């Protein structure tokens, strides 16, 4: 019986790299869905730019995971030949684009985290991760700037844009907690100085977020209940649909070179 899904040895470092790679791929894919359909041509450009940055990050991280794992996997096998339960991205990033407000709120929540995260990761004792972090941090800084400008414009724009932006914040807020969570696998890397502890970044992240949200005349939900699961493969219903599209060619023509 043929099987098309690869097996992955999820040692802590492989798992670490895959989680971040999946984050970047899935968000990059979502942004790429806008291409040709954005509210203005300048936004087609900007969304594609951010998508390209993220795809680039994903490729480097997958390649590193493959190298560390050493079982003959590569960036394309990781991206195209894992099933939904093998994906390790944050739930936030697989949420559908929705309207432009929702896409920008998702981007803002994540980029504000990623920027702090990658900046701190530049001090990783793992030279490859430190190098990826340096590049990703520069890119994330632009993502924060672009998305936060839009949050302010939408929040403080018209009544409709305010309503949509607030709705997006309310809907996506519960997915932000997962960014700061750490499991045992990752705790070991933190203790070894390979990874940094994201929980330490939460106060600064919250400060950035509340600053922009209040400038935008918007508000954060009171609820502190947070949804988790992506990091261990318990996803929302949205990821499966995304993957059926993303993987369709590799699944239909197994083993071919493109």
């Amino acid at each position, binding site marked *: 019986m043929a099987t098309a899904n690869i097996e992955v040895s999820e040692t802590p470092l492989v798992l670490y790299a895959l989680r971040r790679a999946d984050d970047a791929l899935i968000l990059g894919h979502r942004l790429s869905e806008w291409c040709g359909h954005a509210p*203005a041509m300048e936004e*087609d450009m900007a969304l594609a730019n951010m998508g390209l940055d993220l795809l680039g990050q994903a490729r480097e991280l997958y390649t590193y995971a493959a190298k560390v794992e050493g079982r003959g996997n590569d960036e394309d096998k990781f991206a195209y030949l894992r099933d939904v339960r093998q994906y390790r991205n944050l739930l936030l990033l697989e949420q559908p684009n929705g309207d432009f407000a929702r896409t920008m709120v998702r981007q803002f929540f994540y980029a504000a985290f990623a920027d702090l995260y990658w900046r701190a990761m530049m001090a990783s004792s793992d030279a490859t991760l430190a190098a990826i972090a340096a590049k990703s941090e520069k890119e994330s800084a632009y993502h924060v700037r672009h998305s936060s400008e839009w949050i302010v414009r939408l929040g403080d724009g*018209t009544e409709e844009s305010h309503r949509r932006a607030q709705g997006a914040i309310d809907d996506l807020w519960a997915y932000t907690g997962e960014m700061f969570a750490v499991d045992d696998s990752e705790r070991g890397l933190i203790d070894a100085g390979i990874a940094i502890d994201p929980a330490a970044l939460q106060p600064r992240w919250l400060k950035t977020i509340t600053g922009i949200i209040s400038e935008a005349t918007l508000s954060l939900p009171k609820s502190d209940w947070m949804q988790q699961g992506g990091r261990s493969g318990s996803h929302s219903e949205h990821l499966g649909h995304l993957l059926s599209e993303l993987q369709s*060619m590799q699944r239909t023509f197994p083993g071919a070179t*493109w």
Partner: protein
Amino acid sequence: VARASQFQARIDADERIEPNDWMPAAYRKTLTRQISQHAHSEIVGMLPEGNWITRAPSLRRKAALLAKVQDECGHGLYLYAAAETLGTSREELVDAMLSGKAKYSSIFNYPTLTWADIGTIGWLVDGAAIMNQIPLCRCSYGPYARAMIRVCKEESFHQRQGFEIMVTLCRGTAEQKAMAQNALDRWWWPVLMMFGPPDQASQHSDTSTKWKIKRFSNDELRQKFIDATVPQAEFLGLTIPDPGMKQNANGNWEHSPIDWDEFKQVLAGNGPCNRDRLAARRKAHEEGAWVREAAMAYAEKRKSRQLAQAAE
């Protein structure tokens, strides 16, 4: 009349016309139409290729395709900017496209069915576009000529990428090669039509030639394209779907008659994707309206706040 002949003298002397220079109304109108059609084509052209971004078969191809479609958007933006120097706003130009009044290249009214179409568009559609556009880098209108120089550079990169996709397919499995051949079969004739009607039937060529907007005739460019493409198809091991094509004494490849009825149908709105393309662009425009309004409302609020602050 004196200005008109002075203008023509400048053209004849290969001088560049710039936005603030005097120019005949017909020159302005012709160029506005041509540049904006070209811009519309870049923007609508994002759709057939964009259709495969989410399904590209490797991460490298996915990134390259997204970057390519983004470049097309960038070309659209320079070209609208060049057209705006002639006095019509981008908004008006875009509205004319969305309402169906202004045209875009008919080639984008064909669907992308398989991944091989992405290779074929790069190889043939971009290849044909470059043939059309290289002479425009020397066009008499400065902003257009400069935009084309930048566009052509990127287009030839895209063309090479497309050809490389075809090479990979043709060296791949039997299914991949069949996919490549099928794509060539579907795109060949529409691509030949990209050069426009045969010379004896072309409307705009005379004045365009006089004004050095157009430097080669449709048939000349088409011939150049075919002669360049035949050896590439041979290299790929693909068969051009024109059994009657033959090389003449000058070494040029003579094609069989083109079905200009199809060309006219597609131009008249009856191509496979005309409705889908316009509907997609209109949807993006309409669904984006509240975003553009929000940005304007915010900009105004900000301005009036700054004025109020300055007055304190």
